[in-house]
């Protein structure tokens, strides 16, 4: 059991540092989702099934979807703008 806790804490801390240091934003969102997954496993080991279920559903499901939708809107805003600028330049 100690090994499971140790591996999960290691995954959490390295993913947290990866969120700060990695270059692309999509990888940062994926690292945030990995933190949530490891956290839910630790919640199950700490005998809290309600909290683990909430963390799985919210962290890996809802939070990642919200972040990905926001990133999609930011990136399509730039691409639409670039297309409009090209149409004006041409």
């Amino acid at each position, binding site marked *: 059991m100690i090994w499971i806790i140790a591996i999960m804490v290691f995954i959490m801390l390295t993913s947290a540092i990866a969120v700060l240091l990695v270059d692309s934003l999509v990888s940062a969102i994926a690292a945030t989702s990995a933190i949530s997954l490891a956290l839910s496993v630790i919640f199950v080991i700490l005998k809290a099934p*309600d909290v683990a*279920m909430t963390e799985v*559903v919210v962290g890996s*499901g*809802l939070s990642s*979807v919200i972040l990905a939708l*926001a990133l999609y*809107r930011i990136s399509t805003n730039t691409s*639409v703008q670039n297309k409009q600028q090209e149409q004006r330049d041409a």
Partner: protein
Amino acid sequence: MRNVSALVFASGLAFLLMVIAWQFTVGAAPMLVGEAILQQAASELGSANLVTSVVLGYRGIDTLGEIAILFTASTATALVLSSISDKPSSKNNTEIRDKGTILSSSASLFFPLLITLGLYIVMHGHLTPGGGFQGGVILAAAFFLPLLAVPGRGVNHSGLALVEGFSGAAFIVIGIIALFQGNAFLQPLWGHGEMGSLLSAGSLPLLYAAVGLKVGAELSGLLAQLGNITESEEDSQTESTSTKQTTMQAENK
């Protein structure tokens, strides 16, 4: 210079928190209130899931405050997002349309399964781990998945607002009924039936059902607005033109 000072601050904060946390041992929690709740919750409230009895019975007003915070956050998000004039152009719309038949048919297949799962988790909140919030998020995902596959379907924002308003009002009305019977606000009513059956624990399943429907409707409206998906009336016209184009291309081939 800013980086160095931030790192020094971080190490100092970590050291301070570790020293404070070391005073409390892991695994020997001095449960003063928790012990009393563990002894008395089964006979007082009758729900098998003790966390549910804490969330809805002993700390019911905290749940009311949480519902209020979620409502405020989603209303404020809708307000900020509606002022962003970021309508996708018609060129982007026809690019979004073609998601393929696999995705749209499997999304239609997932819809009843996810609704069943969400309602199951909501209704059994007082027996197994689960409850209103988890089931509500699954219901929101059930409504959002077909919307991702075929964005032209649109979402009925007024219907969602109606469901959300009625379930929020139902939560408060159940609490006020307890006031009329001479108890405190949000006191669990109607005795407790046999522990472990579906119709036990008085008004707790009704409260969780109201919370689950409210959270589900709120979050699906919020997701639809983040994805910039509007009502289905304006999009159905562009969808009919795009289907005309695809049928003409199919006939030409």
